[in-house]
């Protein structure tokens, strides 16, 4: 599918840059799996509305580009100096022509402005009744998602049900961030002391990437996120598991037991400990870092930069600031055995 609905104006392919543009768009349209963060393949009503508007503006821009750039090139070729040429005619202006080319762009801009304003008001409508409310909080450098009605708190992976309106209430715990999941909608800033809104209804099941879009310090590049659009049944099951207490420890698995013990016990000379910052229901109530009660059910850790498999968690626990420069979680000297036990324990927290 092409990223824009219609080719309204034939492109002047003579201009090489324009050709490059067309080829580029073709690539975008045909191979969107290669571009998981593309804005051109929306999977929600809001994303669709934006993309449709952008498509209109884009083709107007191509039209103006072709006309003006061609006029420039034609002028350059036609009036280049030729041998034996006399002084050109000294013209100073032409009122009618100048009025015409003042009005022409103004008319095109009005044509763009009308659907623009319409889309602005459409996107800013109040969320419909029955929308799923999610509080989104940006932290340096991870995302917290809180579903107050469902009693769910998670990090970096936002689960939403297919076909149900979702109303995000976005804020920040520290500096300004910006929530951006390109295939679902445009970005919305997360600002301390303020709450902004983003409303969309997802129309495709899948996992869609995003990341923080406002510079927020050292690891701005490492503040990624995923939006998982689930079918309503899958979402309901997910929410039920997340809101329940984590599963009891398997008392036959010594590694997991040692992991829990390590999680409770670890405290480095700088007085850093797991429990001071992280919540695991029934064990600790720390609030500086992500809630880990169900971390085993997440596919990523560390602001969405590492897979949550054993290798990923091990890499993180070895040296958090090495993965995420400036991270609040310091490097704590852990033995290989402690790390293996913690991995097993965290994986068991589904």
């Amino acid at each position: 599918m092409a990223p824009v609905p219609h080719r309204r104006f034939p492109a002047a392919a003579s201009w090489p840059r324009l050709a490059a543009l067309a080829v580029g768009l073709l690539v975008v349209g045909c191979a969107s799996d290669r571009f998981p963060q593309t804005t051109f393949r929306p999977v929600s009503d809001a994303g669709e509305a934006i993309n449709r508007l952008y498509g209109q503006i884009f083709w107007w821009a191509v039209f103006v580009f072709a006309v003006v750039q061609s006029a420039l090139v034609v002028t350059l070729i036609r009036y280049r100096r030729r041998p034996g040429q006399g002084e050109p005619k000294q013209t100073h202006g032409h009122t009618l022509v100048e009025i015409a080319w003042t009005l022409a762009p103004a008319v095109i801009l009005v044509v763009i402005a009308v659907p623009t304003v319409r889309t602005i008001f459409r996107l800013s409508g109040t969320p419909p009744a029955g929308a799923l409310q999610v509080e989104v909080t940006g932290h340096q450098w991870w995302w917290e998602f809180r579903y107050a009605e469902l009693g769910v708190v998670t990090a970096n992976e936002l689960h939403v049900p297919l076909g149900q309106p979702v109303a995000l209430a976005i804020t920040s715990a520290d500096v300004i961030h910006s929530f951006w999941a390109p295939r679902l909608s445009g970005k919305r800033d997360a600002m301390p002391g303020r709450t902004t809104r983003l409303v969309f209804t997802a129309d495709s099941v899948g996992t869609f990437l995003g990341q923080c879009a406002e510079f927020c310090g050292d690891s701005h590049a490492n503040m990624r996120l995923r939006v998982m659009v689930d079918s309503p049944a899958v979402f309901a099951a997910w929410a039920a598991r997340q809101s329940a207490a984590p599963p009891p420890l398997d008392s036959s698995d010594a590694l997991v037991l040692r992991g829990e013990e390590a999680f409770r016990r670890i405290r480095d000379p700088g007085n850093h400990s797991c429990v001071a910052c992280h919540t695991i229901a029934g064990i600790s109530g720390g609030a500086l870092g992500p809630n880990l009660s169900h971390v085993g059910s997440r596919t990523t850790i560390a602001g969405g930069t590492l897979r949550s498999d054993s290798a990923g968690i091990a890499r993180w626990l070895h040296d958090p600031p090495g993965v995420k420069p400036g991270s609040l979680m310091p490097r704590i000297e852990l033995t290989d055995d402690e790390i293996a036990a913690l991995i097993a324990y965290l994986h068991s927290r589904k």
Partner: protein
Amino acid sequence: MATTAIPQSSPAVPAAPTGVWSWITTTDHKRIGVLYGVTAFLFFLLGGLEALVIRIQLGGPEQHVVSAEFYNQLFTMHGTTMVFLAIMPLSAAFFNFVIPLQIGARDVAFPRLNAFSYWVFLLGGLFMNASFVAGPLFGAGHLSVAPNAGWFGYANLTSTQFSPGPNIDFWVLGIQILGVASLAAAFNFITTIINLRAPGMTWMRMPVFTWMSFVTQFLIITAFPVITIGLVFLLFDRVFGTNFYNVRAGGDVLLWQHLFWLFGHPEVYILILPAMGIVSEVLPTFSRKPLFGYAVVVYSGVLIGVVGWGVWAHHMFATGLGPVADSVFSASTMLIAVPTGVKIFNWIATMWGGRLEFRTPMLFAVGFISMFIIGGLSGVMHASPPADLQQTDTYFVVAHFHYVLFGGAVQGIFAGIYYWWPKIFGRALNDRLGKLHFWLMFAGLNLTFFPMHFSGLLGMPRRIYTYAPDLGLNTLNLISTVGALLTGVAMLVFLYNVLASRKQPPAGKNPWGAATLEWAIASPPPAYNFSVLPTVKSRLPLWTEDGVSEIPDVPPGPIHVPPGSARPLIAAVGILTMGIGALMHHHFLPSLLTVLGGAAILVYGIYSWAFEPFEV
């Protein structure tokens, strides 16, 4: 010493003063223009080097050429340097050299204030860049403590809570110091243009470069106070613990954004209007035709300056201003496209029917138009708030403003450099090397910035020091990096051209056959500019029969030119000292004493300057 300056051709009188001291104490607008140009170009090269390191880091995914922390310093300093230390002062170099010559004046209205502006600019630029090596002085444990919160320095990342080091202090104080230079210069040029025009140089006979510069000066004197206030708030938050941007105590992070962009958007026009003026000079000269629709080009420049004040919140659509504000700022932003489009049409119409001669200045002027069309059109795209929500803070915007500022402003500046070089130094730059420079740069900039439209819309945010390998962005980024290296090669060609220019033949008074007043006198112009003040009778004095009164090569009598003075430099050192004092705010007493010492030097500089004997 300099009350009478008589032409160098007369063996009986001494030539213009020479030596380092004569440059340090100079009050000659032409020399100050050269100082501005050379200094700003060195900062331009520094900012370009920063860009190259950025591009090398982003040439592939997950590269670690530089650390995250240093990368953030690099992009902050790249932006800050290019805006405040390169493009603005390069424009100022032309204001200085060209405006007095174009309006038929002996010098600017306040020659010593002019020198003061330059010295403050130089010292402010050095102050800001000293942060790259000042780490040990602050016990930072690493060499560089350069500003690292972006050239836009959004609160509250800049607060002491999130940026405890000296990085942000360097940035706040550096921009304050540079603001002093810009404001002093702007008042100087406004006064000069209003009061020192030669007889007959009416407003509507004024060359378009001088007109656009005039509009720019008003933008400077109105925009800089706004950023000054924003920075004072920030400085007070950081030094005295006030809470302007502290959310916990009732402050507001959006206050900064409004103040910053209320300055920041007019700043964009401060950067582009002088280049538009240059292009409006170059095109008629090499088309052998007057500018098409002179009055419309002038009025549209004024209109851009006025409407430029009503568009700032288009930088803030993602903050959720609400549908009414979004619609209003969207409309005003689209509105500004109209006078901009009119200028482009008038430039093309200037060439239409002309006899186009593609010398290097002309190539850059045409390149400006071509690239500015692209930057303008992508600008209209994010004038639409819903579309902007996908584009803002991505590489799409990086592409957009580099087409405007590099394809636009910098190409305009190069057009000016090649155009006025023979006037400034008496010898033109080599045209073949110039063309090579142009084509390399044109290819390089398109290769760098065009793919960024795609990388942005395909999901690449700005200001990230690394990106995941599976986003499909690797090839696009590699192309951008290759383009940046090519642009670097173009700059080497230019530098070689500059070095080789000493062997060029003398250019004569009017090598391009141009129409404006600066081409009526010798190249380089004598210290006094015009042997007698000209009387202007035409908008195109040198293309019109009897367009200007005769300007003899030898002055008929003694001419007063402003004497040299070291006082402006002393006053500038005072300002620098105050900045250094404020930088030490963690140590109260030494900081206070240094600030007071700097204030004393400043007061002494200005006092002795005011009472400096007029005739030496």
